[in-house]
């Protein structure tokens, strides 16, 4: 019973930590207002997905999928590696666009804090349609 539980824990340890990391990134993304911090959270989330895929491709006692002469060699699954290589490169591309957007928002609004941007936006709306501000009250 005890050893069964232990093997279940060892067999799922990688997945559980991946879920923890994923949720940490998700938490940063939805609870923090700073756009740069949000992008860091997005990166944490993304890297955790990479780890999930690579964990699924691992074979215990295996070696990297680079062919050697030994016919008995056991290789880990190369396909997740290929997918994740592509994902890393696409990830840095989206991150750089996100950072460029943050820099433009800083230029336009003078801040990268979400709530301050919302306040400025609300102020612009009030100037355009003063009636709505009156409806909302002071």
């Amino acid at each position, binding site marked *: 019973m005890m050893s069964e539980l232990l093997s279940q824990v060892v067999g799922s340890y990688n997945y559980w*930590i991946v879920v923890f990391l994923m949720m940490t990134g998700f*938490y940063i993304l939805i*609870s923090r207002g700073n756009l*740069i911090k949000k992008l860091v959270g997005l990166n944490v989330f993304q890297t955790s997905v990479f780890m999930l895929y690579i964990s*699924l491709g*691992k074979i215990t006692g295996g070696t990297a999928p680079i*062919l050697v002469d030994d016919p008995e060699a056991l*290789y880990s699954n190369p396909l997740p*590696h290929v997918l994740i290589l592509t994902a890393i490169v696409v990830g840095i591309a989206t991150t750089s*666009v996100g950072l460029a957007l943050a820099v433009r928002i800083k230029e336009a609004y003078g801040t990268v804090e979400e709530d301050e941007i919302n306040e400025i936006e609300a102020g612009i709306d009030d100037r355009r349609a003063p009636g709505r501000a009156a409806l909302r009250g002071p």
Partner: protein
Amino acid sequence: METATDIVLLALLAATAVGLVRIRNLFAVVMLAGIYSLLSAGLFTVLDAVDVAFTEAAVGAGISTVLFLGALALVGHREKKPTRTGRMQVLPLAVVLITGAALVYGTMDLPPFGDAANPVHHRVADHYLEETYHEIGVPNVVTAVLASYRGYDTMGETTVVFAAAVGVMLLLGGGARRRRGGAAPASESESE
């Protein structure tokens, strides 16, 4: 030994992620994110994904950190103290805990970690491992699949990178033009 390294690296990653949540100095956050990437590169090496590991070390810990530092130089490195009310702080935590619990429940159905009998390791993966050397003549299976079997996919990936580069140049180059301000020629200000 391999398993021990795996466990230690994942524990360090979890600790780093908690640090990322708590620290508000964005300069420290970016540095910690670089460490996080380097740790994950180490983890990929332990998990036999050497190609992924060096790409993550170069792109995640290198280029990404430089980009974040460049952005910080332009937007400032202090994160504001959260000014939300009680309910607004509890809501994200609740969402994260529920999603996390659902995902952990999902992992119960995943095959055990590292088992060679897992279904994902058969059929397609076997074919690549057995045939790559005859068909492509490159001993590194990952490179062979990436550049040859899935060459079109990689070409699509470079298209994405190109589109991102164009997007960044438009976003930032446009700002430089606006900053020159009133001196801009009439035709340019009309087009905006």
